[in-house]
């Protein structure tokens, strides 16, 4: 695989293709960068941090974040059907607080890239990711999203981590609903260990 960064134009959109695993998000909204600074200097949070220990506030906020992960609908192919089966009643994703699939990325926390992403779809994937406000995470569901999967050809992105930064990879073709739930639980573990407030800058990609 190549190790350089490629800039190309697809359907009129410009897109940056990174080596696998090294994609970085960029903030589409200047307002979002200001917001992050403001929250970093949030007076109430700072007061709470002084009053209680930092860890307690961090624990509470991370608990709230990880138990209400609202996914953005990004079902592309076969994995989308298994994602719908995970939402359905036998494997219930609502017990993790994630049954609210928001169509608008502006209201979503996590983007589950379910299915094979073609190069024609790649600029749209990047745009939806950029439109999500922080904090945001990405789960690459299925082998096609993780590494190109069965399809190593001219049309398929060999892993969406060339385009957006991915937090959890779920293997399977398609992964069983239990595997996707395991992936969501891994993401919950990751969120549990995140820093908040003024220590957060280092974490956001």
């Amino acid at each position, binding site marked *: 695989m190549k190790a350089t960064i490629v800039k190309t134009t697809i359907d009129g959109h410009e897109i940056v293709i990174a080596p696998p695993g090294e994609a970085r998000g960029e903030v589409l909204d200047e307002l979002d960068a200001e917001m992050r600074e403001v929250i970093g200097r949030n007076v109430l949070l700072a007061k709470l941090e002084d009053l209680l220990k930092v860890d307690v506030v961090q624990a509470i906020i991370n608990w709230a974040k990880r138990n209400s992960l609202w996914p953005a609908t990004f079902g592309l192919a076969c994995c989308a059907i298994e994602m719908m089966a995970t939402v359905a009643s*036998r494997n219930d994703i609502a017990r993790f607080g994630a049954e609210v699939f928001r169509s608008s990325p502006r209201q979503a926390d996590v983007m589950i890239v379910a299915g094979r992403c073609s190069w024609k779809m790649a600029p749209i994937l990047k745009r939806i990711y950029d439109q999500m406000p922080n904090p945001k995470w990405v789960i690459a569901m299925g082998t096609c999203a993780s590494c190109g999967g069965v*399809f190593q050809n001219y049309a398929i992105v060999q892993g969406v981590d060339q385009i957006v930064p991915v937090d959890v990879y779920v293997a399977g073709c398609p992964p069983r609903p239990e595997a996707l739930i395991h992936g969501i639980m891994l993401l919950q573990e990751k969120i549990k260990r995140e820093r908040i407030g003024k220590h957060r800058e280092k974490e956001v990609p």
Partner: protein
Amino acid sequence: MATVEWEQALMTINMGPQHPSTHGVLRLILTLEGETIVDAEPIIGYLHTAIEKEAEFKTYHKVITLNDRLDYVSGMTNNFAYCLAVEKLLGIEPPLRGQYLRVIVTELQRIASHLVFLGTMAFELGVMSAFFYCFREREKILDLFEMLCGARLTYSYIIVGGVRYDLPDGWVEKGREFLRDFPKAWQELNELISENPIWLSRTKGVGVLRKEDAIAWGVTGPSLRASGVPWDLRKTMPYSSYDHFDFEVVTAEEGDTYARYWVRMLEMMESVKIVRQAIENLPAGPVLADHPWATPPPKDLLDKDMEALIRHFLFYGRGYPVPPGEAYAAVESARGEVGFYIVSDGSEKPYRMHMRAPSFIHVHALPVAAKGHLLADLIAILASFDPVMGEVDR
């Protein structure tokens, strides 16, 4: 008194590839006059996977795994059509038990696919509970498939020469149990949706596709039968022992969204009939034809017979050569006529594999049915054609 002249201004709106109601990554460029649709241009290709090109580099047996991912909601039928085309080139006919098993899994797959159709269409029109009921029934069918071949979505169960595995113990009992319980669930869904006044006002008279337009645009499957054409490949050009079974071709006259929905609902019950007949009359015998090199040898021979071991390795490793020629084979899937056109040059890999996908045509016939309707009706019309973008873009 001054009169106001309203200008006719046409508005172009993009219904983008990322959308909850477009059944996958379909992009529609809508030209609207107020709320009324003047034109809806579909732009596809967002899921193009180059499966046809990949198939030229893999042996005939390995291409079966690629085929599952084409129409991913109805995986068995892709394998079925492909295997029929390759069997035509090879000159193999599967044994009768294999043919009956193919019929059983295809009809169960049809029920599962129609349940996905119903669940998503109802979800998009506001009946959110139906989504959960449909997927609950679908899980029972997927349990049956998992017992049979180990996979829930991408089966690769139907191979050239027959099917891969015979029924395990207890499958027939579980199948009969499903066939006993499914009509009650169907009745539940019917009572919830079919007479609902909101459903009727949103689907009756909406998106009428006339018979001449349907045939000219190449529409097949339930969408064609809902426009009044009684064309069902299982009855008119029967394959794989479908002529042994007694079932009806469900047709409707109006050609609107409600007709397309109702045809699919009744087809689910016809499929139940076919599966019941097939299970009761299942003949004994092998499930896979015994061709010297184009079918894998039975597993129990592998540690007894040297020739079987060699045949096994050659089959899975090098593949099998198929006589040169070309063939087109089509089956009736849940969406329409799924066909495979295969050109062989005498080697172990297909020279050209082309899939004739029904949804490719239905998506392009959408503007014909949607002209003059409101934007909200477009969702109902699109859902009633039941497109799957995997087979549109291949």
